[in-house]
């Protein structure tokens, strides 16, 4: 009872709960249609109908309805209020795949409350399936596939339908992952036509494909033949027999076959002519195979009438044909190695192993027969591919045969000519070029029958020796490729030698690359010579190992630090190049690139600086300047030389030798104390041209007290040192003279004397060994500086010697008396003046001397000086001088001590030989 009560309570609770949930879940309205699926691009209208109780509960009507799609309000323009409870919304051209549409109402306080919601799906109806085709794999069920057409964006079911004329089969529904094919669930029944089609259906429609009607046996793909085996025939080396087991389908249909075969190493298949295998069979004999060659076979089958599909290929089967005698003679050649024995040649016979296609079996050995002309033969059996024999210098014929289990090959013959044989007739137009990743060699045959050609090649390298490889070609071949392991970027030296019946012809060589590449290294450029505006660049040719191809050209890139790069292309035959138009005193960076057909490679950069001056530019400036200077100097010297007398008068006036003055002559007993130096030679008797003139400042009022003082001092000094000098003579004025004495002592003495020198000589004895009647003191009033003759008694002796020899010329002496204070400018003026004077005529000169005498008499220069002038005047008076005598004496020099406005006086002094001027 209690149990029943509990049950009732539980049932009541469940009922009430369900009722309340139902009330809670009861929507306020509905949207129609509830699950719409529409075609994309079409229009769609939804209607929301509110319940009456909701209208009353929320105090709303249809105008309060708000439509939303994917939580976004739909524009009011799309709304239509149908009645108090119903509102519709219309969408045009629906493009979205899936849209969530909700119907909402605005309750009190503008609160939005959801009423109902639906999902709108859009897509396309299915297209008609196209290209329906079926295949029946033998032993399996039929499978059909088709092209479904465009994407529908909707769940679309494809159903494969099939039927006989008398019955229908179960539908084949595609699986979700493979909607375009279907495997039927019934076994294929052959020889009964079946009709098949595809039905595609989704929410927007259903469409069926075109029906196809066929016999399944015409869609069969048989299983491949199995247990394919190859049987060798020992009777024939060119056939192999294949056997196999046909697939089970051969009990139903007739089969045809494809049989393919290839050699083991080949990649392409050969096929037995299809017409030979059009009937069902289980064996076939393949013919025309190569002896001793391993072949690979495979087979497939299909329905005889070509309806259906080829089976897959069977598993491959291998078989080797039986051996046959070698079909060709081996390639045969020789090399003559240097031999130490004069009588023999070491000949290395070399040959190539026959390729398998020509050996036709395993080569057991080679037989070499060496036959000397008209002599015996010698046989060798060799397992290797070379044989070295010593041959004389005669002609030999050597044959080679290869032997296998079945027999011998044809003989290969080479003729080794005698030592004096000269090869000729080379091939012409030899060319080598890469093609199809092989290095081809082409040539034109010489105009002579060629038995064969020998092609030799090796890699040219700077480091490795040339190790040649070789091959032989038939005499009719003019083009072939090198059958060696050639590598790219290597330079091959290829030599072609024609072989004639009498021996080998002259070889011809050519270089070639299998494949060129850019050089590994670039050329290293350097400067050979750098000029102001040009630079000579030089470089070495790239080694063969790094060329990687034929160097076609070089490019020189040069630039300054800030300038653009300039490129110059240079032919590959050059190894130097001159860059011109460069800027002086500029740093240049230059590099070179070498180019092959496949690219280039830059070398290292080299920098150089152009000099500021071109070579020789400085010399071009300096040398002309120096030359001009030298020329000027030379001209100056020449000028001076030509005008030396004139110049000498200006800068080195002749100084009269006091010792040769008249006073000295007047004192013939004065012992010779001085020797004339070389300068005195100038005043040798024969050279005395100038007239000795003593220029006296007649109008100089200054008494020259300083000079007088100096004169006094000099007098004292003279007395103390020589003793022979006396103070009788002396000049009241300071005499000046040029320092014409080279010796410093002499200079010094000259300077000393230049200050105040008292020219006076005490004559102790007669002049020139003449005994004067009366020993007198002759006093010179000259103010000339002391000459060397006074300091050097030797000079006087020289004079004496001259006198002794009898070449007695009247010595000319002149005094110069200068009262000027200055030693320089007055001298110059005096020189000019005297020069002018010297150019005057003789009459003027005489008249001037007379005037000077008269003027000097009145000059108050001191008593002694006055006296001397008187004496001179007396001399002029008592010693009548003829005009001719005057002419004998050239003026030695003149000193003009002239102040402006001061008249000059000249005192000509002439000395008659052996005579004395009267005192």
């Amino acid at each position, binding site marked *: 009872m209690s149990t029943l009560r509990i049950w009732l309570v539980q049932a009541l609770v469940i009922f009430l709960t369900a009722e309340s949930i139902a009330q809670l879940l009861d929507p306020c309205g509905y949207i129609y249609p509830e699950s719409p699926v529409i075609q994309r691009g079409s229009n769609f209208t939804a209607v929301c109908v509110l319940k009456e109780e909701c209208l009353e509960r929320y105090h709303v009507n249809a105008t309060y309805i708000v439509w939303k799609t994917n939580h976004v309000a739909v524009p009011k323009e799309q709304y239509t209020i149908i009645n108090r409870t119903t509102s519709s919304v219309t969408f045009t051209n629906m493009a979205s795949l899936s849209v969530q549409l909700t119907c909402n109402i605005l309750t009190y306080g503008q609160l939005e409350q959801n009423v109902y919601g639906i999902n709108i799906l859009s897509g396309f109806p299915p297209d008609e399936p196209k290209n329906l085709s079926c295949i029946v794999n033998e032993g399996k069920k039929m499978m059909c596939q088709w092209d479904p057409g465009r994407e529908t964006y909707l769940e679309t079911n494809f159903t494969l339908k099939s039927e006989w*004329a008398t*019955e*229908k089969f179960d539908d084949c529904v595609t699986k979700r992952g493979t909607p375009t094919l279907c495997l039927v669930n019934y076994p294929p*029944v052959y*020889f*009964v036509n079946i*009709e098949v089609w595809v039905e595609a259906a989704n929410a927007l429609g259903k469409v069926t494909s075109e029906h196809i009607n066929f*016999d399944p046996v015409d869609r069969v793909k048989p299983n491949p033949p199995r247990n394919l085996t190859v049987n060798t025939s020992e009777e024939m080396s060119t056939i192999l027999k294949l056997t196999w087991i046909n697939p089970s389908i051969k009990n139903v249909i007739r089969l045809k076959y494809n049989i393919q075969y290839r050699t083991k190493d080949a990649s392409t298949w050969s096929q037995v002519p299809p017409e030979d295998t059009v009937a069902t069979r289980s064996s076939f004999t393949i013919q025309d195979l190569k002896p001793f060659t391993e072949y690979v076979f495979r087979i497939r089958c299909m329905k005889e009438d070509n309806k259906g599909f080829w089976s897959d290929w069977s598993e491959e089967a291998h078989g080797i044909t039986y051996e046959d005698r070698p079909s060709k003679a081996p390639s045969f050649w020789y090399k003559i190695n240097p031999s130490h024995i004069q009588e023999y040649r070491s000949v290395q016979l070399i040959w190539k192993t026959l390729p398998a296609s020509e050996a036709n079996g395993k080569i057991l050995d080679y037989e070499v027969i060496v036959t000397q002309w008209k002599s015996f033969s010698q046989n060798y059996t060799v397992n290797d591919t070379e044989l070295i024999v010593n041959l004389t210098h005669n002609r030999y014929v050597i044959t080679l045969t290869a032997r296998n289990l079945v027999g011998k090959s044809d003989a290969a013959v080479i003729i080794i000519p005698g030592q004096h044989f000269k090869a000729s007739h080379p091939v012409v137009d030899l060319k080598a070029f890469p093609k199809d990743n092989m290095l081809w060699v082409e040539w034109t045959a010489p105009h002579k029958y060629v038995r064969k050609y020998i092609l030799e090649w090796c890699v040219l390298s700077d480091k490795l020796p040339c190790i040649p490889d070789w091959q032989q070609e038939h005499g009719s071949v003019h083009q072939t490729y090198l059958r060696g392991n050639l590598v790219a970027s290597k330079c091959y030296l290829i030599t072609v030698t024609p072989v004639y019946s009498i021996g080998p012809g002259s070889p011809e060589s050519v270089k070639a690359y299998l494949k060129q590449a850019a050089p590994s290294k670039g050329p290293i450029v350097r400067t050979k010579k750098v000029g102001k505006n040009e630079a000579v660049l030089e470089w070495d040719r790239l080694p063969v190992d790094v060329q990687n191809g034929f160097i076609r050209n070089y490019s020189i890139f040069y630039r300054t630090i800030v300038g653009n790069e300039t490129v110059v292309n240079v032919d590959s035959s050059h190894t130097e190049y001159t860059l011109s138009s460069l800027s002086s005193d500029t740093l240049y960076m230059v590099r070179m690139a070498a180019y092959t057909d496949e690219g280039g490679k830059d070398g290292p950069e080299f920098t150089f600086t152009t000099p500021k001056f071109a070579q020789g530019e400085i010399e071009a400036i300096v040398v002309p300047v120096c030359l001009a200077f030298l020329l000027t100097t030379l001209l100056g010297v020449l000028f001076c030389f030509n005008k030396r007398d004139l110049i000498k008068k200006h800068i080195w006036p002749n100084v009269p030798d006091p010792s040769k003055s008249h006073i000295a002559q007047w004192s013939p007993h004065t012992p010779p104390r001085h020797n004339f130096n070389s300068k005195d030679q100038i005043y040798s008797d024969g050279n005395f041209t100038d007239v000795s003139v003593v220029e006296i400042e007649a109008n100089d009022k200054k008494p020259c007290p300083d000079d007088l003082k100096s004169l006094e001092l000099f007098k004292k000094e003279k007395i103390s040192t020589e003793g022979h000098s006396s103070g009788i003579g002396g000049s009241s004025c300071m005499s000046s003279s040029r320092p014409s004495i080279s010796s410093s002592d002499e200079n010094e003495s000259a300077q000393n004397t230049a200050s105040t020198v008292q020219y006076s000589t005490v004559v102790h004895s007669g002049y020139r060994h003449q005994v004067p009647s009366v020993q007198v003191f002759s006093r010179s009033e000259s103010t000339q500086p002391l000459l060397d003759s006074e300091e050097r008694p030797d000079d006087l002796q020289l004079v004496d010697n001259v006198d002794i020899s009898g070449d007695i010329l009247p010595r000319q002496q002149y005094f110069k008396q200068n009262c000027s204070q200055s030693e320089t400018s007055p001298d110059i003026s005096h020189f000019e003046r005297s020069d002018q004077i010297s150019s005057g005529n003789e009459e003027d000169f005489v008249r001037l001397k007379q005037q000077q005498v008269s003027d000097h008499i009145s000059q108050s220069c001191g008593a002694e000086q006055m006296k001397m002038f008187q004496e001179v005047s007396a001399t002029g008076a008592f010693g009548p001088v003829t005009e001719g005598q005057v002419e004998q004496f050239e003026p030695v020099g003149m000193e003009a001590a002239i102040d402006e406005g001061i008249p000059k006086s000249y005192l000509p002094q002439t000395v008659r030989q052996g005579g004395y001027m009267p005192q």
Partner: protein
Amino acid sequence: MKVLAAGVVPLLLVLHWKHGAASPLPITPVNATCATRHPCHGNLMNQIKNQLAQLNGSANALFISYYTAQGEPFPNNLDKLCGPNMTDFPPFHANGTEKAKLVELYRLVAYLGASLGNVTRDQKILNPNALSLHSKLNATTDTMRGLLSNVLCRLCNKYHVGHVDVTYGPDTAGKDAFQKKKLGCQLLGTYKQVISLVAQAF
């Protein structure tokens, strides 16, 4: 059997291709309804020949496979146990007209089909591991279905025969295993002989 239920003609066959059905049906009158799902193919006779050849080609293997699968004493007592001595086997006259031969072929194939159905059912029970035999039995049965469709199509299209009365062999459902094996072996032995004659007749 579900497949065969589709269509009018198959419906007739279904009614009489039950295991154990025994009463033969008379030939349908010429004016009987003769409708097919789609037009029959024009190469029906060639297909029938190929089907007969196919059946003939596989009959012996089926027979061998059957008695081998049954084990002793069948392989060594084929004459006694598997001899073609079935009395109710539909007759076939190779020298008749094409229409007559087709009608007799129809009855023969209907009979064999039904009997092979019984044998197949029994062998799946008696020799569940004899998969090769099962496969052969199924393949033969399927081929006979196709042959029957072609023959009926030919009769219907050319001779407008929409219905043929057929007979069936004894139902083996209530027999013991050996009897089932023996009846099956006798059926296949007879089939091997008859199908050879029929194949040659077309």
